[in-house]
């Protein structure tokens, strides 16, 4: 018997906890599982805020049924159409038969494109600033286009200071805890950052705009309820998550490095370890991540806190290894800013890899303070010394950039 969790008087979490989830949306891993949060507001108009992923619909319906009969639901708000939030919508439409389904203008287009029956649903388009009265309380809407889809929006209940933020401020964390104050800040920040840097990062400009809009509207937010992970129910938690997002979006250069590489016969790998020694000499902490052992989303989780990304691949058939090519393609789409980069790699005869990586990094806006580091076949002591020296030089530039 799955139970609802009250988050404010007559407002309940009725979501699903997915402990098994590891593949998140097909492009990122969720090593700690995730949750699909949705909510019910019991007012004169009984209103659902979002649904869940289709295969978790039964959990949400079970929690809902402890509070109200599904057919007594009057309204459904769809903050975002992506299938982990709206996937169960057709089933909820069937069970609840609501009088109205509220969505953004882009949400209407997306609903019609996703669901065959949506043309027969009572869709009501709401724009930024529109408000609906539920009885004692109301919901006002703020479109958050491209945060992280065109249709995304926030719903805000001014009477309670409660923000339903959909994917914004989400974390992939499956747990019995429902609230951010029930886990350590370290765990919370890690999950928040991993989510942001694999999903929200390219839209950092919009994040800053939304944060500015929130200040401009002088919203007195006392609780943020996202659609993934934990709920922020105390003022200090709300401030913590808003400040974390501001800092993620500003992307100030940080004094830490990641060396990400793939290797064939361990030559490029040995170069990676030598560069790390040089970075340590310069006082820059760093982590070495092999792409055979680390998924590209785990690497992005590390890039989150790094001002320097050093990328290595041996030359293979005049190109770079596929894991490195894949990682670079993934990182390019996420548009990281204000970072230094460097390229390295071993080669047998032609040696294009370092040039290819360097060009890709500079195409993404990385600053490349040292020349790419190449070694033929197997690095000897001298070559490893050069790698170490390059690490020292990179570290020095990073330290200066962070100080400046």
């Amino acid at each position, binding site marked *: 018997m799955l139970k609802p969790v009250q988050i404010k008087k007559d407002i309940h979490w009725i979501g699903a906890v997915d402990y098994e989830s590891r593949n998140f949306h097909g492009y990122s891993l969720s090593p700690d599982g995730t949750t699909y949060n949705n909510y019910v507001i019991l007012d004169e108009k009984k209103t659902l805020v979002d649904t869940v992923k289709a295969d978790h619909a039964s959990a949400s319906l079970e929690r809902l049924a402890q509070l109200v009969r599904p057919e007594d639901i009057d309204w459904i708000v769809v903050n975002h159409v992506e299938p982990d939030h709206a996937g169960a919508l057709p089933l909820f439409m069937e069970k609840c038969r609501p009088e109205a389904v509220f969505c*953004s*203008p*882009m949400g209407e287009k997306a609903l019609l494109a996703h669901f065959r029956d949506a043309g027969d649903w009572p869709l009501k388009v709401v724009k930024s600033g529109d408000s609906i009265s539920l009885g004692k309380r109301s919901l006002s809407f703020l*479109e958050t*286009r*491209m945060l992280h889809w*065109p249709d995304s929006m926030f719903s805000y209940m001014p009477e309670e200071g409660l923000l339903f933020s959909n994917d914004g401020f989400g974390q992939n964390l499956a747990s019995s805890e429902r609230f951010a104050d029930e886990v350590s800040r370290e765990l919370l920040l890690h999950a928040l950052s991993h989510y942001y840097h694999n999903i929200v990062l390219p*839209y950092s*400009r*919009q994040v800053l705009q939304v944060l500015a809009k929130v200040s401009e509207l002088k919203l007195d937010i006392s609780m943020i309820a996202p659609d993934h992970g934990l709920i922020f129910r105390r003022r200090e938690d709300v401030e913590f998550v808003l400040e974390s997002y501001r800092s993620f979006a500003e992307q100030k250069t940080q004094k830490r490095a990641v060396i990400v590489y793939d290797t064939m016969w361990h030559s490029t790998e040995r170069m990676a370890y030598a560069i790390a020694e040089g970075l340590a000499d310069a006082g820059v902490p760093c982590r070495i991540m092999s792409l055979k052992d680390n998924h590209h989303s785990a690497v992005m989780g590390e890039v989150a806190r790094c001002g320097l990304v050093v990328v290595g691949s041996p030359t293979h058939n005049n190109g770079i290894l596929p894991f490195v090519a894949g990682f670079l393609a993934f990182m390019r789409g996420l548009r990281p800013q204000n970072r230094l980069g460097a390229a390295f790699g071993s080669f047998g005869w032609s040696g294009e890899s370092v040039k290819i990586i360097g060009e890709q990094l500079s195409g993404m806006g990385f600053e490349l303070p040292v020349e790419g580091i190449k070694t033929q076949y197997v690095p000897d002591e001298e070559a490893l010394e050069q790698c170490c020296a390059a690490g020292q030089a990179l570290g020095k530039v990073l330290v200066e950039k962070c100080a400046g």
Partner: protein
Amino acid sequence: MKKYVCALCGYVYDPADGDPDGGIKPGTAFEDLPDDWICPVCGAGKSDFEPE
């Protein structure tokens, strides 16, 4: 006539094509689009566009 890119979603407004679904005829320069014209992909306003 210049093409303009939506900074939010990456859609490119090509004056040669216009935006027929949004009532904009082919051959309309970006500058001549009405102020309330929005990106057909993500709904961003004109101010979110940059020259390509």
